[in-house]
């Protein structure tokens, strides 16, 4: 099982490094978003900063995860389908998306810091928030991406389905961000962390239960 997961993960990364299609396009996408934001906003208040960060992160994640199940050519898809267990496919995809998103989000935050500011004062909390919400986003988006792939594979469907579902994470996460940049005071912020963590667990358990049914045609 573990070998299968890492094998599939290695395969995904290798094919990514070989054609560099997703990475280059997503990096360019990120860069152009931030340029557009820079020339339309020039400088941002701290309140706007969190909003900007989350908009960039969410649309970045949607574009990264979207199509992660339909990128394979048909033959290779069937090859993996017959060879690997559904759950190892799931774990490998979630891990792949998580690693990719963590890297891209770090890049996004770096670029935002370069073009605008980084008002973060409470770094451990900020990083913990980012890691937790990114994992939640990758869990939900991976699942929705498979649903989208199975139902016609239109990019807009992914956006429509995924955006409302990550709202709990978005609300708790942006609140935590406001705490991390000390715009609001909240001694109970661990409750938000806990609720994101709980949502990740629920999503994970649910996906483990539902993914194999969805994967098999």
């Amino acid at each position: 099982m573990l070998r299968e997961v890492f094998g599939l993960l290695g395969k995904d990364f290798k094919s990514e490094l070989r054609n560099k299609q997703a990475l280059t396009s997503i990096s360019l996408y990120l860069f152009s978003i931030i340029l557009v934001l820079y020339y339309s906003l020039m400088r941002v208040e701290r309140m706007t900063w969190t909003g900007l960060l989350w908009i960039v992160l969410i649309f970045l994640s949607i574009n990264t995860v979207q199509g992660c199940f339909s990128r394979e050519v048909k033959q290779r898809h069937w090859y993996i389908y017959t060879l690997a267990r559904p759950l190892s496919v799931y774990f490998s995809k979630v891990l792949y998306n998580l690693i990719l998103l963590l890297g891209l989000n770090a890049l996004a935050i770096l670029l935002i810091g370069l073009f605008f500011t980084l008002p973060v004062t409470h770094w451990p909390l900020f990083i913990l928030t980012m890691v937790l919400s990114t994992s939640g986003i990758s869990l939900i988006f991976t699942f929705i991406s498979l649903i989208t792939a199975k139902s016609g594979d239109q990019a807009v469907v992914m956006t429509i389905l995924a955006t409302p579902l990550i709202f709990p994470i978005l609300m708790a996460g942006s609140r935590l961000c406001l705490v991390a940049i000390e715009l609001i005071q909240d001694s109970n912020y661990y409750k938000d962390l806990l609720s994101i963590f709980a949502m990740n667990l629920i999503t994970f358990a649910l996906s483990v239960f539902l993914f194999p049914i969805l994967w098999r045609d």
Partner: protein
Amino acid sequence: MVKLAWWKWVAIIIMPYVILMGFMVPLGQGIVNINPFIVKSLNTNTLTITGYNTRFNSEGKIKAWLRQGEWHLEADQVLVQDERHASLVFSIPVFPDSMQNQVDLSLVMDTPDGPLVLPSAVSLSQDVAHATPGFQAAGQWSKEMLTVREESNFNYPFRNILGETIRNTYFHVPLWFAMVMVFMFSVYYSYRYLRFKEIQDEWKTESLVAAGVLFGILGTVTGAIWARFTWGAFWSFDVKQNMTAISLLIYGGYFLIRSNLGDPDARARISSIYNIFAFVLLIPLIFIIPRRFDSLHPGSGGNPAFGSQDLDNTMRLVFYPAVIAYICIAFWISQIRYRIKLLYNKID
């Protein structure tokens, strides 16, 4: 004689009862206006009050107190003008238990129809500069127990900003109960479909989700109308209003997936899976996240939702039956939709 399942009879019998009781039972007495808002200590103050559904001029003595914590002060005189208007004369000594310049006082009245309470009715200004020279108070602040006559009429409580709109409790809140119930059963049928692969279960799921979405829309609309008359705007971006909008979006996704898929088996399987996934993610959205945000709704900011504050015993007599009736009606609607699907299938 029409043959109907028992739970439909429940809905048929209870629904007129809810509508009748909801609209016919009068509201209890309350105070809608008090003038002035500020009273001064070491002075004689006359408060003019306007009541709602009150009968000040009926037989029986009326008493009034200003209260803060366990301290209270009785009015020297209660001058009744007509059934809705009265003047209360208070000569107020210095409030004993507070160093602050401003003290929030509630007004408590004892009438033949029962007690009348207006929380934070006036604020007491303790400024010594306003004192009347040679002021002698008739009463004193005391800590003795207040005794008031019991509420004698069958009516709904008068709440400050709610007024008559309190009746909407029976038509707005049960919609959400019914919606959640119907969604829960749709998840059950989704699970059954994935387990036994019978297409009927999938039709049941779809009908239940459709009924749930209908109830969700109705709940949003009744809520918006209620909000217009209490909070002042149809939509005030309250966290629960936003969450309902989002949950309706999530279920919009359910119908989007269905319309995208032509093959009935794939449609049934994928939409069932999405339905389970969406419902589970809906739980934190509706029940957990709003508690962390300030809301105009009761039940947020850590308050219990259906404590004794919100519902009194008279309202419970109507509210709980209303919940049952609405749930039955939601299932009824979904059943009709399901039967239409069955008939269409017979034609094809």
